[in-house]
């Protein structure tokens, strides 16, 4: 379905990892290729940290979002300021 598409994963500890979906399973374990983390802060624009090939364990995943290419192209990450997301508290 979304294989080879650009997706955005929000983890339980509040991190935002963007990459190309290469695989997933029943437990929502996810394989991302060419991934990078988007680090939000209120002091400067969004920092992108290159991670490469990543496997994220399903237990640690909150949201998997499909990135809309047009909206993504219009987004200026250097101008975006926000607090990092809060971690999930069960």
């Amino acid at each position: 379905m979304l294989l080879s598409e650009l997706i955005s994963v929000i983890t339980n500890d509040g991190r935002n990892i963007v990459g190309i979906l290469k695989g997933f399973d029943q437990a929502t374990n996810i394989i991302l290729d060419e991934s990078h983390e988007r680090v939000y802060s209120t002091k400067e624009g969004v920092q992108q940290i290159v991670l490469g090939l990543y496997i994220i364990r399903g237990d640690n995943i909150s949201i998997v979002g499909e990135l809309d290419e047009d909206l993504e192209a219009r987004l200026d990450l250097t101008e975006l300021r926000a607090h990092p997301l809060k971690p999930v508290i069960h």
Partner: protein
Amino acid sequence: MFNLQLFFSYFKELVGREVTVELKNDLAIRGTLHSVDQYLNIKLENTRVVDQDKYPHMLSVRNCFIRGSVVRYVQLPPEGVDVELLHDATRREARGG
């Protein structure tokens, strides 16, 4: 373990409705319920985050999958709740099927 089958069936009835899902990280996402599975994982279409200024992290996301384990509340349309039917179903469940 608590039987989720009843809620699974219930959420399946709500497919196509507009719902707001509040997560355990305080993020609230509004969208059209596309599907739900046995774990109560939820797929939403045409999503927007309720407080976009505070949470711009999903600005370019329009379709998303939410893991059932991180859902705190699902806010439903009032007309989507058949109280009588739910009463009956939960009583039946409490009696043990």
